[in-house]
């Protein structure tokens, strides 16, 4: 049987309550598809909820418990899944009412039982290809519509820019006029139905508005760009630009039926008419003037007021609106003036705050979206909506978790931080060239960062998660963090490619400190705070194992008369004695030496050995009187060169020596090497 990579195969969802039926279908299809099975409608809906984008086709039974096939179809309609996932019904029910109902609910095809392998394969394959083609066509269409829309706007802009160029105007005038016109017209449609413009009509007016001054091509340059006021005669010539513009458009051969040309003519000719009939060239009044020309006239005046000219400064938005409302700059339709008043704040931000190209691009996009929506291609929308949903979910969880989260993008190489992380680390949200950045070289130690990245890149799609403990520098403080990173591998194509990674840093400083404290506690004797036997063994063994040239002595002793002290002076005094001994041990050894209490009255000192005087001094210090009470110890000493690195052996030797002292008169010390039978026998001291 062919064993193609499961990743390149498309996924089919089979929904049927009979396990046997499902496996029969799956047996027929598993060569060419990945199969997911659901045993009833509710399970199918749950799977769709989770894997919507992966599922290419559904085979759906009708009669099922819990939720039947029709209910699944209804749900798919409600959720919009039906628009992109083809559904083929399967059932023994061949009644036409059943089939009709399934078709009405959006099913694309129908396979009746009993299944025939060729039929099943053929229907599935052809419906799958059809859906694929449809999606491709929708993508191509949207690309083309977008390109066309952009090109036509571009042409109009080039044309108008030529006019502006000759005018010595800013280059922004046309853009401002068209944005202004569009916003006013849209609002006008909200407050009155007097003019009844469709979205398409508005679009034509907005496009044509760019042409309003093309008649200026016929005005001599010395008048057009005269720095001072025009004479009456010059002004008359200037006024001709309105009628000239209209004529220019009307003379375009064969095109006089185009809406854009017709509306353009109106706008050119009448954008200097006035509501009160005192404008030019025709002295039209009120609604004799086409609504498009009325709005462009206002837009033109507004932009002239707010722009700087040779002979005047640019007024502020507020001042310009005020001058217009006061009737200082002509007479306008009261409804349009109301629009201006209603949306003046939006106008200000649209015209003076955003970059016009941004604005323009958005306009084009919005147009394309409009076109696609009305023609029913809602394909990309759904994906966008889903992504938006995911993004919202993520940012919500991220803001709750109060942890540093980041995304690593492989190409172009950068780190993206969540809002919270960026604030917390005091770094920008987007960090290019991360290794060299504050993130890779300050927050992380540069070496750690490189090492972590290498580990992530060396992970596999099967086990993409890497974690480690790193000391991070967070706002100047060293903090232990557990860093977990999940590599993202592309799953199309044969060879998985590393695309980036998601990561999270969890502050474990407190946790680590707590553990360290617990470790300290576990190592200490409760009364004296010396090491206990277990810790002493571990530490001493470590030193013995280090195989240095150093010679160590293990000194083992017990108090000869602790019991007597307890009996005579009470337990408190006994404790005091033990603590005094501990103090004396610590103050007569170096910090690198190991002092321990083995419980009861037994103590150990492990130290670098110099000579017998060293031992003598310690013995004398330990056995000084305490508040008049004579302190007596039996002490045995063993040297590390006799034990072969074996701690237990060393301890045993010291213990033996101490034992020998205890039963030889107490209150003295002895070296193991001096015991009878081990080469010595001399009693020290």
């Amino acid at each position, binding site marked *: 049987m062919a064993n193609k990579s499961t990743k390149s195969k498309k996924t089919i969802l089979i929904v049927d309550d*009979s396990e*046997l*039926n499902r*496996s029969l279908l799956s*047996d027929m299809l598993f060569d060419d598809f990945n199969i997911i099975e659901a045993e009833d409608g509710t399970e199918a809906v749950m799977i769709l909820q989770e894997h919507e984008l992966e599922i290419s086709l559904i085979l759906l039974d009708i009669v099922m418990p819990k939720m039947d096939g029709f209910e699944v179809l209804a749900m798919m309609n409600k959720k919009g899944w039906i628009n992109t996932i083809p559904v083929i019904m399967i059932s023994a029910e061949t009644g036409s009412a059943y089939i009709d109902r399934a078709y009405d609910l959006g099913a694309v095809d129908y396979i009746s039982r*009993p*299944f025939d*392998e060729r039929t099943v394969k053929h229907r599935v394959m052809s419906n799958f290809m059809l859906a694929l083609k449809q999606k491709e066509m929708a993508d191509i269409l949207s690309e083309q519509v977008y390109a066309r829309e952009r090109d036509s706007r571009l042409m109009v802009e080039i044309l108008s820019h030529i006019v502006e160029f000759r005018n010595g105007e800013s280059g922004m005038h046309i853009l401002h006029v068209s944005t202004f016109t569009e916003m006013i017209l849209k609002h006008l449609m909200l407050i009155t139905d007097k003019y009844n413009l469709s979205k398409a009509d508005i679009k034509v007016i907005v496009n044509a508005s760019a042409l309003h001054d093309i008649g200026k091509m016929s005005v001599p340059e010395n008048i057009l760009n005269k720095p001072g006021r025009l004479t009456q005669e010059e002004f008359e010539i200037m006024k001709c630009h309105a009628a000239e513009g209209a004529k220019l458009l009307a003379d375009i051969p064969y095109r006089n039926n185009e809406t854009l040309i017709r509306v353009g003519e109106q706008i050119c000719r009448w954008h200097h008419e006035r509501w009160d009939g005192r404008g030019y060239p025709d002295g039209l009044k009120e609604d004799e003037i086409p609504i498009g020309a009325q709005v462009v006239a206002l837009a033109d005046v507004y932009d002239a007021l707010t722009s700087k000219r040779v002979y005047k400064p640019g007024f502020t938005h507020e001042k310009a609106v005020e001058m217009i409302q006061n009737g200082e700059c002509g007479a306008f339709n009261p409804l349009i003036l109301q629009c201006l008043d209603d949306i003046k704040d939006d106008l200000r931000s649209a015209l003076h705050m955003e970059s016009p190209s941004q604005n323009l691009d958005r306009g084009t996009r919005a147009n394309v979206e409009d076109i696609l929506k009305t023609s029913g291609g809602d394909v990309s929308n759904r994906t966008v909506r889903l992504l938006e949903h995911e993004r919202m979910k993520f940012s919500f969880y991220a803001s709750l978790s109060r942890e540093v989260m980041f995304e690593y993008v492989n190409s172009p190489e950068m780190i993206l931080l969540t809002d919270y992380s960026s604030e917390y680390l005091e770094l920008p949200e987007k960090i290019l060239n991360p290794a060299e950045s504050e993130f890779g070289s300050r927050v992380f130690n540069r070496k750690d960062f490189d090492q972590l990245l290498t580990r992530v890149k060396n992970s596999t799609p099967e086990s993409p998660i890497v974690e480690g403990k790193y000391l991070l520098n967070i706002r100047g403080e060293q903090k232990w963090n557990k860093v977990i990173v999940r590599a993202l591998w592309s799953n199309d194509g044969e060879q998985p490619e590393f695309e980036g990674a998601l990561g999270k840093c969890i502050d474990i400083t407190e946790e680590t400190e707590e553990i360290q404290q617990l470790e300290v506690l576990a190592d200490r004797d409760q009364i004296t705070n010396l090491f206990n036997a277990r810790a002493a063994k571990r530490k001493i063994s470590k030193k013995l194992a280090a195989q240095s040239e150093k010679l160590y002595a293990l000194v083992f002793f017990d108090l000869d008369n602790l019991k007597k002290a307890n009996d005579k002076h009470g337990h408190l005094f006994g404790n005091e004695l033990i603590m005094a001994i501990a103090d004396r041990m610590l103050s007569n050894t170096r910090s690198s030496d190991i002092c321990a209490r083995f419980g009861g009255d037994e103590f150990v000192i492990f130290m670098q050995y110099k000579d017998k005087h060293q031992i003598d001094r310690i013995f004398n210090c330990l056995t000084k009187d305490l508040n008049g009470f004579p302190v007596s110890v039996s002490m045995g000493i063993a040297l590390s060169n006799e034990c072969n690195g074996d701690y237990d052996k060393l301890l045993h030797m010291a213990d033996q020596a101490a034992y020998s002292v205890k039963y030889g008169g107490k209150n003295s010390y002895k070296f193991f090497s001096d015991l009878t039978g081990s080469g010595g026998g001399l009693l020290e001291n």
Partner: protein
Amino acid sequence: MTVEECYEKMGGGYADVTSRLRTDERIKRFLLKVVDDASFNNLCENLAAHNIEEAFRAAHTLKGVCSNLSLTMLFHSASAITEVLRGKTEYSEEFEQYLERVKEDYIVTMECIKNLD
């Protein structure tokens, strides 16, 4: 017993099933699954408990399974009870005679399948 002999004995359509499912190997594999299929038991239990809607679904599933494997004889009795139960909510004595027929056919069918090589 070969697959073909088995079909002959249990009143199935061997020619039909091979034209659709292609190989004896696959047919046999799915016949053996019929033995484990729960729909017959579901039918009996739900009818006994007077859960008529559930009983209908079970009968319907059994019918579907039979049709897929061209178990013609059992298919007919399963179809008959499916139609009798369709749309019903109340138990009725008359269901029992239909169930009896399904049972008889089911036993024969199972016997044959179990004796497959």
